């Protein structure tokens, strides 16, 4: 697959010297669903605005389809955006909002009618043509915003936390719908969110960002199973992060005990972060276990119980389908496969 967008050494620095993006390098493949994921202030929206053209990078180059597009204003880019708060035109009805981009480009009336009709059908808003956008629900406004962008047949659609304002059920429906639209139209979607579950559900590839750096790029499974550092591990799903060290390859020491693992390539006795997913910790009788602790709390989460276990040196979060009584001593074990070793460092760049 060919790259449609390349970001090369992008730096964004505000007038007060604050660096928002610190050397971003990113290739986005054509027809891919890419998600920028990170906490607020990590630079994900800034990166999106650079691709859209609302913001010029302080240094670095932006390429679209192999052409350098620095300085090209948004209205000359074949990219459309779905804005965070929709930004629908309040003086126009649903039909005219969707037709806006086509009217600007002086598309013949007959073609406008058919293309807007197609869009209305796609986002399931037939019969709402004459409705004022102020009298639509949040979900409907969202659909109009998506239709208004897609009717222009952009090569790339940018979406800036578009589902943030919707309730959970609607959000889940829209996630699936957006994914379906992306696959049907074979478009490149660049999606910004801080919701890791949303990112895992929809994306072909996820770009995890923090502090103006890209932390990791990979498929949802890669990011979840093989996080490159403690930040990614912690941000994508819940994790137990424990200080440890690597005496030698495939052996890790934490909480004063040695465990077998599968990672290698660290210098002897290097300090590392040990990341273990809550669902990978198995409860076993205390007398047989290397790791023990006292159950502090048990919360029923629907599919599983979430237990907090006090293991003296650190607390453990454990997801298990069986609950242990609060106050009881339990033993814990983790398979070597499920012990993830990561280099120590907070915001290391790739």
């Amino acid at each position, binding site marked *: 697959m060919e790259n449609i967008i390349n970001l090369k050494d992008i730096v964004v620095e505000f007038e007060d010297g604050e660096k928002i993006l610190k050397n971003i390098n990113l290739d986005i493949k054509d027809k891919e669903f890419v998600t920028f994921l990170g906490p607020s202030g990590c630079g994900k929206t800034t990166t999106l605005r650079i691709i859209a053209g609302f913001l010029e990078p302080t240094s670095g180059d932006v390429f679209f389809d192999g052409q350098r597009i620095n300085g090209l204003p948004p*209205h000359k880019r074949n990219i459309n955006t779905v804005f965070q708060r929709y930004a629908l035109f309040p003086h126009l009805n649903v039909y005219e909002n969707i037709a806006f981009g086509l009217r600007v480009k002086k598309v013949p009336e007959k073609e406008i009618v058919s293309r807007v009709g197609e869009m209305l059908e796609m986002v399931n808003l037939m019969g709402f043509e004459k409705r004022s956008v102020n009298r639509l629900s949040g979900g409907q406004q969202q659909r109009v915003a998506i239709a208004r*962008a897609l009717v222009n047949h952009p090569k790339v659609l940018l979406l800036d936390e578009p589902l943030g304002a919707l309730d959970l059920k609607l959000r889940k429906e829209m996630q699936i719908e957006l994914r379906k639209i992306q696959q049907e139209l074979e478009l490149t979607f660049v999606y910004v969110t801080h919701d890791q579950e949303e990112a895992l559900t929809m994306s072909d590839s996820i770009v995890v960002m923090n502090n103006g750096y890209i932390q990791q790029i990979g498929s949802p499974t890669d990011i979840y199973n093989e996080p490159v550092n403690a930040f990614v591990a912690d941000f994508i799903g819940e994790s137990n992060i424990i200080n440890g060290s690597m005496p030698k390859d495939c052996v890790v020491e934490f909480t004063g005990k040695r465990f077998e693992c599968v990672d290698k390539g660290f210098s002897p006795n290097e300090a590392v972060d040990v990341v273990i997913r809550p669902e990978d910790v198995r409860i076993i009788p205390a007398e047989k276990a290397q790791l023990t602790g006292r159950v502090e709390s048990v919360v029923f989460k629907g599919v599983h119980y979430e237990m907090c276990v006090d293991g003296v040196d650190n607390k453990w979060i454990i997801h298990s389908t069986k609950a242990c009584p609060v106050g009881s001593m339990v033993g814990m074990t983790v398979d070597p496969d499920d012990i993830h070793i990561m280099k120590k460092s907070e915001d290391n760049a790739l």
Partner: protein
Amino acid sequence: MKLKYFSAPYLVWMVVFIVVPLIMIVYFAFTTDNGSFTMKYISDVGQYANIFVRSIWLSLIATAICLVIAYPVAFILSRMDKHKQGTMLMIVMLPMWMNFLLRTYAWMTILGNNGIINHILNIMGFESVRLINTSGAVVLGMVYNYLPFMILPLYSVMEKIDKSLFEAADDLGCSPVSTLFRVVIPLSMPGITSGITMVFVPAISTFIISRMLGGGSNLLIGDLIEMQFLGNAYNPHLGAAISLVLMVIILVIMTVMNQFDPDEQVLM
């Protein structure tokens, strides 16, 4: 609701100071001195058609100039930093804190035959130019005095336009010029219509500005009405008839204006 009793003083006020005078004007316009019905005064108004035309024409020009000046000013103002907006607004309002007469007198000394402008022209070796007592001076006085009434409603509407709408327009292919025509102007329409109302209505009925800057040759409706009530031509019946006709004209113009405003928020 008990709350409606709070509006009672206002209702009394409206009846005493708005409804009663209005009825009196209508009564005076259609009666003679001895109280019998007549259409004479209303038909007499026709003699002053040229003054009506001049008044409407000059106020329309002044309103148009105000709109052209105020629109970019209000737009720039609405896009400034919040704290700068306060300072700039104060500068716009500043002339309004001075007495209306005083402001207009100031223009007399600037435009006069021996005024500041002609003085400077003479020094530079040019002939004096007649500036005062022209219709241009009247329009200038109107624009100067009523400009803030155009800027403020425009500013308050534009300030509420979400910045992301401009980005959305840009994103959907609009150049800055087409964003102006497709987004900014339609969304600021309520401000445009109320600004026009706020300038046009006082401009068409003014008499101080035309008296002081227009001399005797640029009589406006306001002067005509004043002459019927306070001047030598004393004739309250004719004055009432002229006022009534002027009111109907303004009402018609405002109704036409309303057609351009989707929300019909214009003050009548």
